[in-house]
């Protein structure tokens, strides 16, 4: 029993502290934020942004009002000059303006176009000139002047169709071609005179100028508050007016611009893209230092919403510490904040400098502090959410942790101790670990009681188990067992079946024994194998069944791969040897009369070269297939190497019977065909040799050697037949064995010399060079062909190549030193195909014979491109040191032209077969001709060798070959002689004749 501990639920131990912590977190964070004034900072920031917004708008307005709209500099002077000139011409003075309406009409006309121009430049909605004098004859209360309006300063119509005339006499309106405003009048009138505030735009600057200290028009300029020039139906405008003075300083009129309130609003609205914000601007004027503001105009919805369109003062408001004003809405609770920026419209100490214009950026409190309030709200919500989260976690813990424990306990309590314990997974690692431990303990307990665990059910191994107990009629069979034993019927639910049924099932399989413990499952389809182990227990039997199909298959495959040739599937040499040796050791009837047949495919190299190795492989496979004709019984068929095959036929009674068997098979084999990639059917061609047991030899090695010999003989002679071993032939050809020693001797002692055969120029008959022909002094090796065959068979070609280079160059050195040969004559050296010198050897050669390389012509055969890397290296070596390359035996191989291009030779040596009888064979002439023209185009010289008659010589010269070689022109000699003078003359004669013929 567990030690008694103080009892408490998980909830109280974990959840309550968690809840407490999260609440404290929230309180702490909010507390810190509140104490540090974060929310105040956010609010201050919001006010700062309002300031910036207002500042931007203020800049725009300040610029527009002072530097654009009211910019009338130069106008005063310009008008003065023009007026003076005009009056002078008529003998009038400025004093006449007061009373002379006709003069005034002319003055106004003089100024009209300048005014239109200035209005366009200043982007104002109107411009006016008012003379301080009579406008209409007989009407002293009229003032002459011109007033033009442009409703949209942003767009200028070239024909002035966008302009309206507000004031002007009819003749001028027609002259200017402008339309009349609906409020058009011929002259200005100012009803109510100075007392009417709507007339301020005229009188204020007019009289201010009189009182002002400065005579500068700009210093006496006046900005009006909004008013309507033409009474109630007209739209509201603000104006800027400046006095006009003559040279005496007397004011004779005013000039001014008008800014329509709508236009002013559009300027203030410019760039206010976020029109859904509830901000706005208030443009106002104060004369009491900011105690109250008179409205000029407002923009945005705030003002309209909160204060109606009050024309009067913006009040009551309080000024904040920050300099912002805080305004209570007329409706009550709402509050608006304002950022105040003062415009500088008047220079200091001027008549109207006490009028301060301000721009106030407005934003209602809710919008302004929306972010701060939102942050505050978010924190509160966050705290609330944390509390809810903690409560939820408590609930979840109660639900997801405590409950599984309760359930686990319940299911443990309810389980049957005699049955495997099954506990549901709870998803909680710790609880599941506990449950697993319980299940494990339960299983081992069950096992100890002699029962197999049901855990096998979940195991995915191909293992099945059965248990048959003496004390029970029922046998336990694990789930996998039935399937493993090839049964499809699975007992539903229970794994207990009658004992007899279990044994029947097991025994049925155990009848098909493959090897110890391995059994084959009877049935269709791919074979399956199982291993069955049965163990005797104290009071019963336990059996395990394991699927070993893949194991068995693997073993079979490995054996197969070890013993069989991969390409053909027939036995390889190793398997052949071990099987055949077994037969020869056992002897007796199994061996009987036997035949060893060595076979060699005849044209494999050709197929490989011409159609590629895939084709060659196919050829080999076809042949291997054909070898089945020797029969499957009493026959061993193996691939010995690339194109060599070995067959052992055994168990024969008589030689005659066996011979018939061989011949029947042979006949079948050589009739077989193989389809080439180009579609043609190619007959199998094979050479074979056969040796008999026991007549020819009584051991396998000897038999193979004899069969090989017989085959080799066929290969040398007729090819394509099967010959039996003949002891007489064998002894005759024994030189091959002794020849091996001779070759070694020749190579070791360098027993070779070079004979030189002259090569003549076809145009001069002079010696062009000599071909070095290798000769040996060894008696057993009578000719170079034998040497090469032996060397090839013995793998000594590399040595021959080395001999050729070193001995050849040494010979050349001596010849040139002794001045035996023609100076500048070239030396043709026959390099061995597919063999190159090592780098060390090349270094030795270049060290010893560097000077000779420029006179060297190395002959390579077409076959050399079989190993292109070697060939390239050899060619590079020769070229690097100034030697030339010649292609030998040109025209005997395949794809000669390709070789010509790839090797990029300097000289082509026509094969003797072309030259022989060329004078009588037009076909040969045509082929030589085409070669010559091909070669000439590429700067390749053509050499004809094997020239043996005068006719051949004549034909070749006519055809245009460059060099000539052959017995007719000079036999190979160790000491080269000067060519015959007669011969030289003949060549020259033939040449000149050929040239004549060509012309």
């Amino acid at each position, binding site marked *: 029993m567990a030690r008694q501990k103080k009892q408490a639920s998980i909830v109280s131990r974990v959840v309550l502290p968690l809840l407490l912590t999260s609440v404290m977190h929230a309180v702490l964070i909010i507390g810190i934020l509140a104490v540090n004034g974060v929310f105040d900072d956010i609010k201050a920031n919001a006010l700062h942004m309002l300031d910036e917004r207002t500042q931007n708008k203020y800049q725009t307005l300040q610029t527009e009002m002072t530097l654009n709209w009211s910019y009338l500099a130069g106008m005063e002077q310009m008008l003065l000059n023009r007026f003076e000139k005009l009056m002078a011409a008529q003998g009038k003075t400025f004093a006449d303006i007061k009373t002379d309406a006709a003069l005034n009409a002319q003055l106004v006309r003089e100024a009209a176009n300048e005014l239109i121009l200035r209005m366009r430049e200043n982007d104002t909605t109107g411009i006016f000139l008012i003379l301080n004098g009579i406008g*209409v*004859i*007989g009407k002293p209360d009229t003032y002459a002047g011109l007033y033009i309006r442009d409703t*949209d300063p942003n*767009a200028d119509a070239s024909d002035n169709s966008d302009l309206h005339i507000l004031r002007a006499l009819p003749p001028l309106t027609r002259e200017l071609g402008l*339309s*009349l405003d609906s409020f058009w009048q011929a002259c200005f009138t100012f009803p109510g005179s100075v007392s009417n505030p709507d007339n301020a735009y005229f009188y204020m600057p007019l009289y201010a100028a009189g009182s002002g200290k400065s005579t500068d028009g700009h210093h006496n300029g006046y900005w009006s508050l909004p008013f309507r020039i033409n009474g109630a*139906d007209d*739209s509201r405008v603000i104006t800027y007016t400046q006095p006009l003075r003559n040279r005496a300083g007397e004011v004779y009129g005013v000039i001014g611009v008008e800014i329509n309130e709508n236009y002013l*609003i559009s300027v203030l609205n410019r760039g206010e893209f976020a029109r859904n914000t509830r901000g706005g601007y208030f443009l106002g004027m104060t004369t009491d230092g900011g105690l109250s503001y008179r409205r000029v105009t407002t923009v945005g919805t705030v003002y309209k919403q909160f204060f109606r369109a009050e024309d009067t003062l913006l009040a009551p408001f309080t000024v904040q510490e920050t300099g912002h004003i805080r305004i209570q809405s007329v409706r009550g609770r709402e509050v608006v904040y304002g950022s105040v920026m003062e415009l500088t419209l008047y220079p200091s100490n001027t008549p109207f400098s006490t009028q301060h214009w301000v721009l106030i950026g407005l934003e209602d409190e809710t919008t302004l502090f929306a972010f701060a309030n939102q942050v505050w709200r978010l924190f509160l919500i966050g705290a609330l959410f944390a509390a809810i989260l903690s409560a939820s976690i408590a609930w979840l813990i109660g639900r997801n942790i405590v409950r599984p424990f309760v359930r686990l306990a319940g299911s443990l309590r309810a389980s049957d101790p005699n049955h495997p314990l099954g506990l549901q997974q709870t998803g909680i690692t710790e609880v599941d670990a506990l449950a697993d431990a319980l299940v494990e303990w339960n299983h081992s307990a069950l096992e100890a009681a002699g029962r197999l665990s049901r855990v096998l059910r979940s195991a995915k191994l191909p293992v099945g188990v059965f248990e048959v107990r003496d004390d029970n009629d029922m046998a336990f069979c694990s789930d996998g067992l039935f399937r493993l034993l090839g049964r499809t019927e699975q007992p539903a639910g229970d794994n207990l079946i009658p004992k007899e049924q279990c044994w029947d099932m097991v025994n049925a399989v155990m009848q098909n024994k493959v090897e110890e413990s391995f059994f084959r499952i009877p049935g269709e389809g791919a074979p399956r194998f199982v291993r069955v182990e049965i163990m005797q227990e104290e009071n019963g039997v336990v059996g395990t069944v394991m699927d070993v199909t893949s194991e068995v298959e693997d073993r079979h495959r490995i054996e197969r791969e070890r013993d069989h040739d991969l390409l053909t599937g027939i036995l390889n040499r190793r398997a052949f040897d071990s099987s055949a040796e077994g037969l020869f050791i056992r002897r007796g009837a199994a061996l009987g009369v036997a035949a060893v047949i060595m076979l060699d495919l005849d044209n494999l190299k050709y197929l490989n070269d011409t159609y590629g190795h895939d084709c060659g492989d196919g050829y080999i496979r076809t042949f291997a297939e054909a070898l089945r004709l020797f029969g499957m019984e009493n026959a061993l068929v193996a691939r010995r190497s690339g194109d060599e095959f070995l067959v052992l036929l055994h168990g024969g009674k008589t030689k005659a019977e066996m011979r018939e068997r061989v011949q029947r098979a042979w006949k079948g084999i050589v009739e077989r065909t193989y389809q080439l990639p180009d579609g043609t059917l190619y007959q199998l061609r094979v050479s074979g040799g056969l040796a008999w047991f026991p007549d020819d030899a009584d051991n396998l090695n000897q038999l193979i050697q004899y069969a090989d010999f017989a085959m080799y003989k066929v290969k040398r002679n007729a090819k394509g037949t099967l010959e039996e071993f003949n002891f007489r032939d064998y002894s005759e050809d024994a030189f091959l064995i002794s020849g091996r020693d001779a070759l070694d001797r020749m190579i070791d002692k360098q027993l070779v010399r070079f004979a030189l055969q002259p090569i003549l120029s076809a145009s001069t008959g002079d010696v062009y060079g000599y071909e070095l022909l290798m000769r040996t002094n060894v008696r057993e090796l009578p000719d170079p062909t034998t040497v090469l065959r032996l060397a090839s068979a013995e793998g000594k070609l590399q040595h021959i190549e080395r001999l050729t280079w070193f001995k050849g160059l040494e010979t050349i050195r001596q010849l040139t030193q002794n001045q035996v040969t023609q100076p500048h004559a070239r030396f043709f050296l026959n390099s061995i195909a597919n063999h190159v010198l090592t780098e060390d050897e090349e270094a030795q050669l270049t060290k010893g014979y560097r000077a000779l390389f420029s006179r060297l012509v190395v002959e390579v055969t077409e076959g050399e491109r079989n190993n292109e890397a070697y060939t390239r290296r050899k060619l590079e070596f020769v070229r690097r040191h100034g030697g030339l390359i010649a292609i030998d035996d040109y025209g005997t191989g395949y794809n000669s032209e390709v070789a010509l291009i790839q090797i990029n030779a300097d000289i082509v040596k026509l094969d003797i077969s072309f030259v022989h009888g060329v004078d009588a064979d037009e076909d040969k002439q045509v082929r030589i001709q085409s070669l010559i023209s091909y070669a000439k185009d590429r700067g390749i010289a053509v050499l004809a060798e094997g020239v043996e008659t005068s006719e051949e010589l004549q034909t070749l010269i006519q055809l245009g070959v460059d060099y000539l070689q052959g017995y007719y022109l000079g036999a190979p000699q160790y000491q080269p002689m000067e060519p015959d003078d007669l011969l030289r003359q003949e060549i020259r004669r033939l040449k000149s004749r050929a040239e004549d013929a060509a012309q």
Partner: protein
Amino acid sequence: MKKSISLCVLLIAGIILTLISCPAMAQVKVRLNPKAPQTLMIWHYYNGIQQQVFDRLLLTFNEELGAKEGIIVEAHSQGSINDLATKLLQAANREPGAENMPDMFAAYADTAFQLDQMGFVADLAPYMTADERAEYVESYMQEGELGTHGALKVFPTAKSTELLLLNATDWEPFAADTGADKALLATWEGIVSLSKAFYEWSDAQTPEVADDGKALFGRDAFANYMLIGSLQLGKEMFQVSDGIVNLQVDEAIMRKLWDHYYVPFVNGWFGAYGRFRSDDVKTGRLLALVGSTSGALYFPTEVTRDDGTTYPIACEVYPLPNFAGTEPYAVQQGAGLVVTSSTQEKEYAATFFLKWFTEVHKNIEFSIRSGYLPVKYAANDQTLLDQSIKDYTITPLLRRIIDVGLSITENYRLYTNSAFQHGNAARQVVETSMTQAAMQALAQRDMLMAQGLSRDAAIQSLTTDEAFAEWYAGFTASLAEAVR
């Protein structure tokens, strides 16, 4: 817990489905949030009284219903209707320096059609019930369809038509001397003969000066003369179907229109001096003009002479003249308000405002005080109008204008051509072709006279069949060019 999640999913799916299926219903219902009001910017071309009334109505709306519903309407005048159209096209084409498109704007069908083709115009039909639509004068609603049956692209706010205005004060001495009959003002033929008589009479006033006769009549919006005249004489010049125009320019009809404008113009019986004919009446150069009911408001109460002196005049209002023996036709014109296609909330808010704005009493106040005609059947009711007219201080002239205007809507067939591609350009050709020809002929006449030709001979040479044929050929060619 799972149950509650699936409940949530169901609920959300339900809401989404409801939202998606909404437009399929006859009327779109949108709920606006008064705390985050929809701000609507209107561009218009109203000025004077019209603007004042509009601004005051706007203020009322913003303070009361708008504040409650969450709609704030701001309005900016953009100058003349032409300035406005130019600015709209600049905004629509996103030209450098152009402002953003407003949420609503005033426009004629031509401009609206053009912007609709560019995809800027919202169809307000989904926000209106059939009953609501039926309250508006059908032909006004049809004009706002812009070729799509059942759509509502231009919301009618006020309409106008044309009438004849006469300076009765200056007419008096002429009538007294010649016995001229005002009844002749009812036909174009009569007006031509009156004008001829007036010229001759005024020429005779100063026997010492030759050829100084005065013109009696002039007119602007010349395209209306051409279009209405052609229709009245038998051919609709712009026959439109599916937004495609079929030009019907009948030579005989054109000749008649020529004879009743070009010929009297070259003779000096008709005139055009200032930029507008109303300007000419103000300065005493003309006695009569044809203009729209809305412009009639500005008919002067006095004439200003060239020296600035003035004398008061009385104005008389007559229905639009017709060609003798034809069915009376008059133009139906006036810009409506167009809503820029936008969010459903904005479109709904705009429609909400427009419905409010065209409520009978508001519509009467807005329209008749500025010489327009209301757009709802109920508002065109004579007794209701009489009642309203009493409520507002209305001058006798305005009263007369409204009366005549209403009589025209009752007795004339009102016509406006359907909008079509290049309608603006075609209209421009019709507007200027004959007036420019007449102006040029006038200049030529004076040149010929300066060269010593007699006035009659000069006029004779400029009013031949060849002169007409030449103009006619040019006119048809430019018209065809304009609509291509």
